[in-house]
């Protein structure tokens, strides 16, 4: 008789195990969500009190214990624009080469491996490299151009990867159809492939800008100014940047207590930038997905 009851016991144990495991997974997931939500809420609640029009449009004052963060916002925008000029064309062309031109499978794998390696290199190593080559060797000094180039190189792998994946998803029949009509390879890429891939490529570009806006380590020694109330006048000037400004406010300066509210505000502005960028990327993805469906 005991053997007969075995399957039933087993199944009860099975169900119990499943219940415990699922409860664990749920509890730990809830934990993670709560921790992450509390980080976001903490900074949002503390920061929202500080942010107003003056905070965004005025320069820091009274040894960084008052005023706003306008030069840091402008500096970060300059760096984003500069790195976009560097990385967008090269990254997209590199992605196109890997999917459309390269025929040797081994070579493509090698390039892909190199791209992955580049994306894994810590940002501080990019900072060292940028300092050695752009600041010292090419003698740009601490400047927006040196910072933009360093950040541009850093954001290349993201762009290359998303471009390549966007192109990979386009069926070969499109290429063959275009070529059969007598179009050259370049015409096919320009008139057929790229228009189809544009939404996903743009998503990649936007996400790369998100990464650029928040990086501190690469610009520590290539661009960022500790305190510089006036705006940069050329690409060979230093500039302030939001992430570095937050670091300075949190760790050094004349009066850490008085700086703290401004630090919360700066952190919130950084989070808002990331949020806008992510929403924009998702929005574009959805918008074009719907468009393709209706066609």
């Amino acid at each position, binding site marked *: 008789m005991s053997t007969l009851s075995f399957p039933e016991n087993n199944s009860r144990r*099975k169900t119990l*195990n*499943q219940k415990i*495991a699922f409860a664990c*997974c*749920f509890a*730990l*997931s809830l934990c*993670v*969500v709560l921790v*992450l939500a509390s*980080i976001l809420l903490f*900074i949002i609640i503390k920061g929202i009190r500080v942010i107003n029009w003056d905070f965004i449009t005025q320069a820091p004052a009274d040894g960084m214990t008052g005023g706003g963060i306008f030069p840091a916002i402008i500096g970060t925008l300059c760096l984003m624009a500069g790195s976009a000029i560097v990385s967008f064309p090269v990254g997209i*062309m*590199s992605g*196109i*080469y*890997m999917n459309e*031109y*390269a025929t040797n499978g081994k070579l493509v794998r*090698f*390039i892909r491996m*190199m*791209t*992955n*390696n*580049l994306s*894994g*290199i*810590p*940002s*501080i*190593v990019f*900072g*060292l*490299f940028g300092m*050695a*080559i752009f600041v010292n060797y090419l003698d740009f000094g601490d400047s927006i151009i040196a910072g933009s180039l360093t950040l541009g190189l850093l954001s*290349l792998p993201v762009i*290359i990867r998303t471009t390549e994946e966007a192109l990979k998803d386009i069926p070969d029949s499109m290429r063959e159809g275009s070529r059969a009509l007598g179009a050259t*390879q*370049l015409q096919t890429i320009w008139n057929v492939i790229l228009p189809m891939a544009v939404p996903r490529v743009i998503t990649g570009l936007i*996400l790369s800008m998100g990464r650029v806006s*928040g990086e*501190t*380590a690469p610009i*520590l*020694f290539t661009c960022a100014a500790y305190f510089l109330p006036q705006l940069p006048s050329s690409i060979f000037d230093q500039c302030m940047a939001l*992430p*570095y400004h*937050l*670091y300075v406010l*949190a*760790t050094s300066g004349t009066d850490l207590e008085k700086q703290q509210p401004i630090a919360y505000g700066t*952190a919130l502005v*950084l*989070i808002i930038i990331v*949020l806008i960028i*992510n929403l924009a990327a*998702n929005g574009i993805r959805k918008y074009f997905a719907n468009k393709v469906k209706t066609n």
Partner: protein
Amino acid sequence: MKKILEQSVKYLFTASGFITSFIILLIIFFLFSEGAGLFRNHIIDDGYVVALNKSNPVNTLSANQIKEIFDEDITNWQEAGGEDEPIQVFRLSDLLSIYSEEELGSEYEHAGSKIKETILQNEGIIAFVPKSLLTDTEGIKTMPDQTIPVKDVLAGTEWFPTATPSPLFGILPLLAGTLWVSFFAILIALPFGLCVSIYMSEIASEKVRNVLKPVIELLNGIPSVVYGFFGLIVIVPFLQQLFNLPVGESGLAGSLVLAIMALPTIVTVAEDAMRNCPRSMREASLALGANKWQTIYKVVIPYSISGITSGIVLGIGRAVGETMAVLMVTGNAAVMPTSILEPLRTIPATIAAELGEAPTGEAHYQSLFLLGVILFFITLFINLSVEYISSRKR
């Protein structure tokens, strides 16, 4: 005309295709050429000399010994391989306390001969003086001009890059700090990361998943300084109270912040791998009478183990290379870590903290580039193992 355009665009694309490989080569070249320069430096500051009395049997001193002598941690020559004689430390500034200004001359023109006199008179003396002042070395033993040995750097346990007369560049405390913090970070992040990815890919309804996924992606995008700032304001004081520490900045604070930062990486990759497990395999398992949990840990996890491992290794890579957050919360004490509750310092944090003050082209500057080279190779190793793990898939 069209053909020329076609060809030149093709070359342009090909050139761009190799840009990442080219950048990696450039990084290796520039980091190496600066970092290797460290071993061409001498253990004593350039332009200076360490001199002993000729009767002293000691012939060579390592950088470590010189530092300990000048810090007065060693006070007898016996401890440095000599005779039982107290060590007398002599720096250039001591000259003024021994001789009057008249004796030295108005332009210090007699300084050289007076230094020599002092060294000759004291048997237990060790003098650290500019080379230019000590031209006549009769009866004086100067330390041989050795370059910084590779062993002292790679196996050295003391990091004092600004010590005079002989700075110490032992990287072990920094390397140990980096591995120590990353290890604990992954230890903390692993159970959470796995559970979240199992929950998201297998248990949660589509609705919950559609909320969770963008949130995790958003967290991946939040700048590391923001995490560091949060750690500094919240986690550090919390740990200080919880464990009753003298300072809250500690390895554990760094590990906690890194764990939070590595989580999104682990979750995204691991969840992706689990979702890629084909439906047919799950259905086969369920049809054999296994319930959902048994299917998850007997079928889905073994199937996607290489993806999960890649996620974990990528998380480790993120933790090892993270700079700003760690710099802000670990307390930055360059000592061999003995407990996770004490301040320590990682390689990236050292570079970020010290490069601003290190004069370009000197030993300290080069030693930071050497740290960059080491960090580069650690992450390269991590990336290649990810590559290897995911290439074994199927």
